[in-house]
């Protein structure tokens, strides 16, 4: 089996068996259970809530992130093994949401770790969550969910942003400059 086919198989397998770890910062605790239980039942897709990042493939970051929380998020993200995907859950991960002017809340999660799929809303409905999963499957299938590769590629920039955030210099956090040549 050549490399191409192998990675294709790997993609298929990882699409059908996404194990999830969710980082609940307070939001989403009402919206996640319906997803897992009989109403929406994400196990239909082979998805599973896992207890540790070592076993997980999908990282679901729910809600706003204070700088202190960000440290934990980065830690957990780095302990996950490739290939790994991140779903930003709720408006707070996109632009800070209702904490947009807070002095110690980060505004854009994708500046610190690569995010593959965002779910907008405050709070998003379970249907939206399911939709994001399907979207992620689609992206994996097409080979578009390459956040983990980006993290390796632009590691220095991510690290720099994280360092800035940890020292509360949130204004110095920059966008990740993507190299278009590739």
């Amino acid at each position: 089996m050549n490399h191409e086919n192998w990675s294709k198989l790997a993609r298929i397998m990882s699409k059908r068996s996404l194990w999830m770890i969710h980082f609940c910062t307070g939001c989403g605790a009402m919206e996640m259970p319906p997803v897992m239980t009989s109403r929406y039942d994400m196990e239909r897709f082979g998805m599973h809530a896992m207890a540790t990042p070592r076993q997980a493939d999908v990282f679901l970051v729910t809600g706003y992130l204070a700088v202190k929380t960000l440290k934990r998020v980065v830690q957990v993200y780095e302990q996950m093994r490739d290939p790994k995907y991140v779903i930003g859950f709720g408006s707070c991960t996109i632009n800070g949401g209702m904490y947009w002017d807070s002095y110690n809340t980060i505004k854009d999660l994708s500046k610190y770790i690569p995010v593959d799929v965002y779910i907008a809303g405050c709070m998003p409905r379970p249907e939206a969550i399911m939709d994001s999963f399907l979207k992620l499957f689609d992206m994996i299938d097409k080979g578009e969910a390459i956040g983990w590769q980006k993290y390796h590629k632009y590691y220095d920039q991510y690290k720099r942003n994280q360092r800035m955030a940890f020292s509360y210099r949130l204004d110095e956090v920059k966008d990740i400059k993507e190299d278009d040549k590739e």
Partner: protein
Amino acid sequence: MITLTIAIFLMGVIVVGLLNKYPKTAGIIAFFVSLIPFFALLSWSSVMNITLPSYLQFLNFETSWQYNLGPGTLILQITPLGWFFLLLLSSLFPMVILFSISYFRSNAGGFYAAMLLTMLGSFGILLAQDMLTFYIFWEIMSWSILALVIRGGDRKAIVSYLSFGALSAMLILFGFMLLYFKTGTFVFAEMHLDASNLVLAAITLIVSGFAVKGALMPMHVWAPHVYSKSEEPFVAFLSGGLSKLGYFGIMLFMYGVVGFSLLSSWGTFRGVPLFGYSLAVVGAFTAFAGTVLAVMQDDLRKLLAYSSIGQLGYIAIGLGIGTPLALTGALFQALNHTFFKAVLFLAAGAVYYRTGKYKISELGGLGYKMPFTFLASLFAIFALAAIPITSGFAAKWLLYEAAIEKKFLFVTPIMLIAGVGAFLYVYKILYGVFLGEPRYNVKEAPLSQLVPMWILVLPLIIFLIFPGWFVDLTAPILQGYEMTAIPHTPYTINTSLAKYNTLAVIFAFIGTLIFAFILYLSKPQEKVDHMDNYLAGEPPELYDYISMHASSKYYEPFEEVFYPYFKRGAERMWEIILAAGEVFGSGARKIYTGIVGDYSIYILLFFLIMVGWWLLW
């Protein structure tokens, strides 16, 4: 030659004792002296129907020896049983001495001197042919252990060892006296015993005396104190080698002197002599309670001590059942225990040598720093837990088979549960000492400590592959008891119930390992730091003041359940007995009031009583 051996040992004791200030020189001299029993063993190998090449038998020892002591005569002679136990002790002893050479940094002369004396005593015990010789060498062995315990300097250890040693000596002596009264001779071969109650009392006393040294409950109280408070090489020899002498004594007197048929004449239960049955029950209780107590210990040496007690209980079970199968199992267990427990104690010594710690909750992560020590103790632990990739399993298997064969319905579950309990405490050693968070930045143990450990691991592997060779060793011993060895080929053992084929296990295991290895090689891997752990997202480096090592109070739920039932049971019993003795003691002391008038009145009273006697006469 035996005279020379004894003389060399005694001279060695003096020379080594005088070299107290030069531990290395003393150790090397002691090592050379310690090899002599092994050469003697080689030269006596014809007793076991083994023919060795002549270059291994360069020293020629006579097979029997006598020394006239005026009133009594010392008689030594090699027998198959003695040879077998000498094999255990004489191969363990030089290794222990070799280990000690680098272990001791000062003042070791006394240690080596006492160790040589223990070996001399054991040598005599194993060869003794009469009760006087046996007793003399037994006590020499016993008090040289006391000397080593005194070096440890712990009150409880000294007091309990000397008290129980005296108890054991006196029980044995009393038993010997009963036998002498019955037969009028001290020589084993000349004794003609009958099925009288006196002989039963004698053998009971003798066996309970030996049970002290074999640490059978409730005579085990001294063992944890001594094991945990003495120097490590000595403890390795005590637990591995010397504790077997108790079982040697039990076997010698139960099957050599008294004999199975005579034992049966005091009543049997389902084909097992009642005497043996009760020994087996005591053994099973010991195996279980020792295991439970071992699980609760935090001190590495105490844990190993209780584990020794538990494992030795299995030997008692085998000796109690008394079929060829059971005796083979008991001897096999004795052999395994000699080597794996010695390795474990030596490993504990090496760990202490490097870290200075014995508490399991204070150790951790040494498996990466001391990989060879870890691997040696891993093998020993496999043998202890009877995992079928060392010879430890064959021994336990024989004992289980023997028990089932004789339909021991209640003893066998206890044995098995004790075996499961062993997993609990060996994992405590594995995790607490060798795995988990690396806390010490130490080097591997020195080579002169690793070599003995690995040499002692070898028999565990050899007899894993060829348990039949071991059964061959037991054949002459069983022949002496008018039994035949169990059916076997080099790598299979057959019983009336089942068959055990080591080659099948080994090859199947190798095969499945290859299978697993192919799976394992499927993907590359990267090594991460031991501290890179998932702790709910908390970076561990933030909390370096908190230990990530969960080994303190490791089996707390277990302790909660079992502790109330095992709260110093036996120890408390003996303490009550001692307290009763002290009550009498203080009563006796009160007689001596210190007032001279009282003393005069005593004399007067005594005089009056005498006068009364005179008047009545």
